[in-house]
């Protein structure tokens, strides 16, 4: 009995760790590029992806990845038109979330615990899920690592990227794909509503300790991993939901980091 308990807790902890490590460097780009709301919108679309997956008997990962990618591409294609980007994101983000909730309720003969997809169900992670999460996390890390310099140049200035013979639109697409993969693997861990938090908060907290982009990514990974481990421990002790607890720990670290930064800037 004890070893069984250990086992699912270990799986859950490893799942949280994998997602946190992949989300951290990606989250840095989302912070630098001011795409926080973009990340949220992409994550919300995942609920529609869940409905799609259930309706067509696909795996949840496939459904959410496809919908998240479609959402991200739609936003990219539509931005810069008639609406301001934040308005557009607001419309698409909430519409996708609402449509997803409606679609899930319309599904015949499927009883779905929606809260598992909204807030995550990390304790339900089985061996297969864990493998998928770590594969996704590895894929995101490889994508970002391989294109790091180009991504960074395009983030600093699209025009500088053009002048260096790079195509910033391609770099944007790479980030979009990485975001969709992250959303797909993170939905089980923290749920669609809190994926944005796992992307943004560790990166934002890491800013206080960093002098270079690489340093910030490393700090973000460290803070994300710490949040995942401490969050799981708290959730187990206090019997609270794991995903939100992980995010609360990250928020606590952010608060401390902000105070450190304020104190240092004042000195």
């Amino acid at each position, binding site marked *: 009995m004890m070893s069984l308990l250990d086992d699912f807790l270990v799986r859950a902890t490893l799942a949280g760790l994998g997602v946190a490590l992949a989300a951290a460097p990606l989250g840095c780009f989302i*912070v*630098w*590029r*001011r795409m926080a709301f973009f990340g949220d919108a992409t994550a919300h679309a995942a609920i529609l992806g869940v409905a799609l997956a259930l309706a067509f008997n696909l795996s949840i990962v496939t459904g959410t990845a496809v919908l998240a990618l479609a959402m991200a591409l739609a936003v990219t294609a539509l931005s810069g038109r008639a609406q301001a980007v934040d308005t557009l994101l607001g419309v698409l983000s909430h519409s996708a979330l609402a449509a997803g909730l409606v679609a899930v309720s319309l599904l015949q003969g499927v009883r779905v615990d929606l809260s598992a997809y909204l807030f995550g169900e990390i304790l339900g992670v089985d061996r297969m899920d864990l493998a998928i999460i770590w594969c996704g996390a590895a894929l995101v890390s490889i994508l970002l690592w391989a294109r790091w*310099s*180009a991504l*960074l*140049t395009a*983030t*600093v*200035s*699209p*025009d*500088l*990227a*053009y*002048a*260096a013979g*790079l195509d910033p639109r391609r770099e944007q697409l790479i980030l979009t794909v990485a975001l969709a993969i992250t959303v797909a693997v993170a939905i089980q861990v923290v749920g669609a509503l809190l994926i944005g938090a796992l992307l943004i908060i560790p990166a*934002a907290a890491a*800013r206080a300790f*960093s*002098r*270079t*982009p690489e*340093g*910030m990514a490393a700090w973000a990974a460290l803070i994300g991993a710490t949040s995942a481990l401490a969050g799981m421990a708290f959730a187990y002790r206090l019997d609270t939901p794991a995903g939100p607890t992980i995010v609360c720990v990250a928020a606590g670290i952010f608060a401390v980091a902000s105070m450190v930064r304020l104190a240092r800037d004042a000195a």
Partner: protein
Amino acid sequence: MRLATLDNVDMRFGGQAVLHDVDFHIDKGEIVTIVGPNGSGKSTLLRVLLGAQTPTSGTVTRLPGLRIGYIPQKLHIDPTLPLTVRRFLDLPRRVPEDEAARALDHAGCTALARRQMADLSGGQFQRVMLARALLSNPDLLILDEATQGLDQPGSAAFYRQIEQVRADLGCGVLMVSHELHVVMAASDRVVCLNGHVCCAGHPEQVASAPEYRALFGTGTHGALALYRHEHAHSHDHDHDHSHPHEAAQ
């Protein structure tokens, strides 16, 4: 050697023509300045030349393998992005320490290497941008309002640095500027742009061209009066007046 050419370039944004039938070229070793009022399409022309913007019609020809050093008009580095000057020089390709040191020295900003980009003053920032542009050993240096926000001595010093760089590297230099008198004194050729090319040629010819006067008046900043005075006897150089339509052939 011709570095880049625009032929009959039209650029429209949402039905609005920003560039109309523009012919332009730049050669190795020359300093060309584009002048024109706000909204005359100067920055758009640079971006078309860079490849950042595809023209609605017309052709852009760049020398194969052309290395461009670009200094944009305004580069906002988000304060959430921690970036030292030295790390900035490593974008997009890592450069060896000695090369980076030489570029910083060339641009006159050796002392800034360990500073954060977001903390630099306007003049310091532009010098770092110049250092970075020099790292690629450019054939063509493109500066878009590079001295905006610098005071008069600051921008004069910056342009002297540019001339020095041209002398050292032998690259072509293309600038856009509002500071007509400073820039025109430093240029081999001036192109006056207002959606189309109004006039082009030697700085003194352009300064005295009726199209140019119609755009800028005769007494702008007092500087042009000074300019006309200096070059009052050079109006008979009609033979080397190169109209861009002919020059682009």
